[in-house]
C-alpha cells in the first residue's frame, strides 16, 4: 500500500516554498518531476515520509565537495602552496569571505598569504589589509590601480618562496556581462600558472544569498572565463534562503563549499547540504 501520486495541494505548497527561496521555476519543476517519479516507483505512506523524499531529492541535486579541495581548514591540501582565487560580481562579499577564510585557516595553524588583486574598487586594498591584520596573516599588495595580474603573480611567487600553505587572491567585483573585465579575470588566472603550474587550485565564486535568478547567468559566465571549482554563499544570516545554488550546483556541476553568516571573522561555515535543505523548509525566518 501507500500512495503513488502526490496531491496537488502538496505540490502547490512545495512550489511556493521553492520559488520563494529563489530556487527558480526550471529547477522547481525539475524537483517536482523527480519527486513524482520517485513516488510513483516507491510510493509513500505519510506526510513525513514525503517530506523525507523531498529533502533527499533536493540534496541529491547539490553536488558533493571534491576530496582534492578539502573545505575543512585543518585538512592537508594536495599542493603547497594551495592557491584559491576568489571571484564574483560587485558587493557579494568576496573580500570579507577571504578575510574569514584567512582567519579560519590561521586558527587551524596554516600559513596563509593574501593577494590584493582588487586594485580597482575605492579603498579595496585598505579593506583587505584590515582583514589581514584581523586574521593575523601577511598580505602582498602594490597599492590601488596596480596591475591586478602582476599582484597575483607576485603573491604566488612570494608564497612559493615563503613556503605558505594557502594563498587567497582577492579580485575586483565585476558584472559577468562585461567582456573586457571578464577577459582581465582570465588573464589574472593565467599568470598564476606561470609560477605554480597547477595554480590556482581553486576558483571560488561568491554568490550573495539574496540574489535571484541572475545568479545562474553569473555562474555560467564566470565558469566560462575562469572555470569555477566551488561556490561560497554569503549573507545567509538574513531571511534570503539562497535557493539559486541548487540549480547552479546541479547544472554546472560545482559544489557549494562555504556559507557566510555574518560580518565577523568567525562567521563562515563549511557548507552542509542537510542543514541547508532543512533551512529551506524552516518556516521561522
Amino acid at each position, binding site marked *: 500500500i501507500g500512495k503513488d501520486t502526490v496531491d496537488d495541494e502538496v505540490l502547490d505548497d512545495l512550489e511556493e516554498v521553492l520559488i520563494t527561496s529563489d530556487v527558480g521555476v526550471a529547477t522547481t519543476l525539475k524537483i517536482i518531476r523527480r519527486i513524482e517519479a520517485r513516488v510513483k516507483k516507491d510510493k509513500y505512506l505519510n506526510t513525513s515520509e514525503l517530506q523525507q523524499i523531498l529533502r533527499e531529492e533536493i540534496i541529491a541535486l547539490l553536488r558533493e565537495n571534491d576530496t582534492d579541495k578539502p573545505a575543512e581548514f585543518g585538512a592537508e591540501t594536495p599542493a603547497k602552496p594551495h592557491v584559491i582565487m576568489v571571484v564574483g560580481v560587485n558587493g557579494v562579499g568576496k573580500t570579507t569571505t577571504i578575510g574569514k577564510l584567512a582567519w579560519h585557516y590561521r586558527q587551524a595553524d596554516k600559513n596563509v598569504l593574501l593577494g590584493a588583486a582588487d586594485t580597482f574598487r575605492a579603498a579595496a586594498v585598505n579593506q583587505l589589509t584590515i582583514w589581514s591584520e584581523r586574521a593575523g596573516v601577511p598580505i602582498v599588495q602594490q597599492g590601488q590601480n596596480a596591475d591586478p595580474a602582476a599582484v597575483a603573480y607576485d603573491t604566488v611567487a612570494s608564497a612559493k618562496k615563503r613556503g605558505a600553505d594557502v594563498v587567497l587572491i582577492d579580485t575586483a567585483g565585476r558584472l559577468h556581462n562585461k567582456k573586457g573585465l571578464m577577459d582581465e579575470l582570465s588573464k589574472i588566472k593565467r599568470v598564476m600558472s606561470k609560477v605554480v603550474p597547477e595554480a590556482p587550485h581553486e576558483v571560488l565564486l561568491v554568490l550573495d544569498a539574496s540574489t535571484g535568478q541572475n545568479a545562474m547567468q553569473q555562474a555560467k559566465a564566470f565558469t566560462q572565463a575562469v572555470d569555477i571549482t566551488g561556490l561560497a554563499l554569503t*549573507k545567509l544570516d538574513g531571511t534570503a534562503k539562497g535557493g539559486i545554488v541548487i540549480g547552479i550546483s546541479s547544472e554546472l556541476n560545482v559544489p557549494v563549499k562555504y556559507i557566510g553568516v555574518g560580518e565577523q571573522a568567525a562567521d563562515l561555515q563549511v557548507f552542509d547540504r542537510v542543514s541547508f535543505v532543512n533551512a529551506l523548509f524552516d518556516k521561522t525566518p
Partner: protein
Amino acid sequence: MFDDLSSKLQSTFKSLSGQSKITDLNIAEAVREIRRALLDADVNYEVAREFTKKVKDQALEQDVLTSVSPGQLFTKIVYDELTQVLGGQKEEIRFASTPPSVILIAGLQGSGKTTFTGKLAKYLKSKGRNPVLAAADVYRPAAIEQLKTLAEQIKVPVYSIEEKNAVRTAKEALQFARSNAHDVLIIDTAGRLHVDEKMMAEVSEIKKAVQPNEILFVVDSMTGQDAVNTAREFDKTIDFDGVVLTKLDGDTRGGAALSIRNVVEKPIKFISMGEKMDSLTPFYPDRMAQRILGM
C-alpha cells in the same frame, strides 16, 4: 519590441483561434506564461500571483480573443499594467525650504550605498548645489577611506570623526554643513540586515537626530524573492521616501523593482548603471517594464 513573451503568447493564442469567447479556461495557458516570465524575472511569488490575476481580469474584460491579434493585445495589457504599477511620472528628491537639506542613504550590505552617495553628490553638484558627505558607516573595514576616495574624485568634502559613533557623526556633519554653507548633506550608512535589531535601531536613531528631508533605500537590482521582506522592514523602521536600483548595467531582469513597488508605495527615484561616479540615471517605468518582461 515584444519579442520573447509576445511570441510565446502568440503561439498560445493561435491554438485558441476559432473560439469566439475568452474564458478562464482557455486563457489559463497564457496566464501561466506570464506568471512564469515574472517569476523568472525575480518578481516576488505573491506579487506575481496578484499581478497576473489583475492582468487576467483585464483580458477577460477587454475580451482579447475578439481582437485581430489576441497575443499582441494581451502582451500590451501586461506591459501597460506593469508600467503603471512601476510608477507614473518621474519623481525628484525633496529639498528643505531652508538649507541644508539632509539625504539619508540606507540599505543592505553591498547594495551600492557608498557608490551611490558619491554619484548623487556629483549629480547634485552638476545642478549647482554644494554638497558635503557624512561617513556614518563606522563598521565596514575601510568604509570611510572608500567614501573619501570617491569624494576626492568628484571634489566634494567628507565629514568623519575618530570615534566609532554613527549617530554622532551624522549630527556633527549637519552642524558642519550649516557652518560651512553646504546646502546638501548626504549621509552614507553601514549596510545592515533588516533582521538586525540593533543596527535597525541605529539607523532609526540617525533619522531622529538629523530629520532627513529625503531617505533613499538602495537595492541591488539582482535581488530575488527576499526583496519584499527587506523593503517592508526598512520601510517600517525608517519610512523611506524613495528607492534606488543599482547594478542595472548587468543583465538581470530586475523584477525586484515590481516587488518593492507592490509592498511599499514608494517611487523608484534613481537607477545606477556602473561603478564610476558619472553613471547615475533617472528611473523610467516603461524601460523597466520592458526589461522585466524581457522585451
